[in-house]
């Protein structure tokens, strides 16, 4: 994994999105004590397996669901208290975009534009052309990938400060997926805007994310800058000696089998020092490694 420099030259560490000890409880699921920040001018990745709570976090930022505890701020304002002002700052793309099926993208654009003072109709028209979308075709007749592109055009055309994308790359062809990732990098380059990209496809984030928050079973397992992750998190492969006292404490998760032990550490420098004379292979951890091994002990 390569350490990622901040995307924007003008990026500050002023948080645009801030969750502090946020909890949300459902009868069969609970999001507990979630805290993380996303500064202006950066791309944040929200990763985790299906059902981990990523979409709930996204919905909380938009006040689509109500939190039970904690504090959320978007640009310093609480979405529950300043709902309209906060939502004007946000462009949102849902995993399965749902608009009125009988309306065309052109008609949906004219409806949505009325809600945003910053709506740029010319930009919307040019995005539809750029994404090869038929502006007069019924939304209900578009493929899933085209719907996502349409939703993206709607989110971009009001020049949102915070772009929240919930599993946007599912259903997209590889060419557009890569183009989208590059576009996101360009989007934050003004130092004013940020992107929160929620996904379980970690390869998308390896390319662009400056910050990563990993959620599992409703709890934040880690939240850190990518370069910090690259410096401190690593996988190690070796023999059973890896699980001996003194070394085991440095492991964040492991899997052992007939071919040895593969483990994850969040303290790579210490582990390197400890294993300097042992036959072990230490490599920078990918996000997928972190998702797979963190907390695992079998």
């Amino acid at each position, binding site marked *: 994994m390569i350490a990622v420099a901040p995307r924007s030259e003008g990026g500050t560490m002023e948080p645009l999105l801030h969750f502090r000890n946020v909890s949300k409880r459902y009868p069969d699921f609970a999001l507990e004590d979630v805290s993380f920040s996303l500064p202006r001018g950066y791309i944040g990745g929200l990763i985790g397996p299906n059902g981990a709570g990523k979409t709930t976090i996204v919905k909380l930022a938009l006040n689509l669901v109500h939190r039970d505890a904690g504090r959320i701020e978007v640009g310093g304002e609480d979405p529950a208290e300043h709902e309209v002002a906060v939502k004007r700052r946000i462009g949102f793309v849902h995993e399965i975009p749902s608009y009125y099926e*009988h309306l065309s993208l052109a008609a949906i654009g004219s409806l949505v534009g009325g809600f945003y003072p910053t709506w740029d109709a010319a930009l919307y028209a040019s995005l539809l052309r750029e994404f090869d979308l038929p502006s007069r075709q019924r939304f209900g007749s578009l493929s899933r990938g085209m719907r996502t592109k349409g939703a993206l055009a709607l989110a971009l055309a009001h020049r949102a400060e915070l772009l929240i994308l919930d599993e946007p790359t599912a259903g997209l062809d590889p060419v557009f997926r890569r183009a989208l990732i590059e576009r996101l990098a360009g989007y934050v380059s003004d130092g004013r805007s940020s992107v929160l990209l929620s996904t379980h496809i970690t390869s998308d984030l390896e390319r662009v994310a400056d910050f990563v928050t990993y959620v599992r079973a409703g709890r934040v397992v880690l939240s850190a800058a990518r370069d910090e992750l690259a410096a401190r998190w690593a996988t190690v492969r070796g023999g059973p000696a890896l699980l001996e006292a003194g070394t085991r404490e440095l492991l964040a998760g492991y899997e052992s089998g007939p071919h040895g032990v593969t483990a994850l550490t969040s303290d790579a420098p210490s582990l390197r020092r400890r294993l300097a004379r042992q036959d072990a292979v230490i490599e920078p951890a990918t996000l997928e490694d972190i998702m797979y091994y963190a907390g695992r002990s079998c």
Partner: protein
Amino acid sequence: MLTLMRKDLRVVAGFGWLIAWLVAPSYLVPAMSASRAGGTIFWVDVAFATAALVSVCLLDARSGADRFVHSLPVTRADVVRARYGTAVVLAVVVLGIGAAVGMVRALTTAAPGAAWPRWFAPDVGLAYLVVMAIVIAVYLPCYFRWGYGRGSVVAAMLLAGLVIGGDVLGREAGLVSGLAPRAAGLPRGLVVQAVVAMADARGLAAAGVIALAGAATMLAASAAVASTLYRRREF
């Protein structure tokens, strides 16, 4: 709120051609038949306006667009208020269509110099607005509390209960026959007869002020209840 109302009207207008095909025969058949059919047109108006309102709610529910709407810069209270506004606009538009049909029928079938049909009169139009205010005031809190499917069933049961209960109560108390003379073509119903009787007794202007103020108060109270019920809704 106005942007949301424009959105609602634009969305339902997408089905304008379908509604026109369904509704035109509903108007034309009774309009061309005997004079008593004028009362039918009144209730066709009510049914048409109710169907248009239910369609707006259905379109949100069926396409999952309510999540999209709530991701826009609006509050839940905005959505509730706008839906009440849309419902009133739809009721007035339907009243206009019904009036146009009635006028065409009166001009083409009434004898020269004869009085216009009783059912096509301002006091009956006023009664229509009061009836629609009751329908809206019952339907929308149910929709915002239980969603489209269950909310529509509960509202239909409540409205049926009101119609049957009102009729029984009116007959038991001797109100239905005593409220107003049964002029030819006057639509049936307790509310219609009460409004017409009030217009007869106090004059149209005073009755209009009283009826519309009552309807507005009822809608405001209903909207407050709907907002409270909708406040905790999640998407």
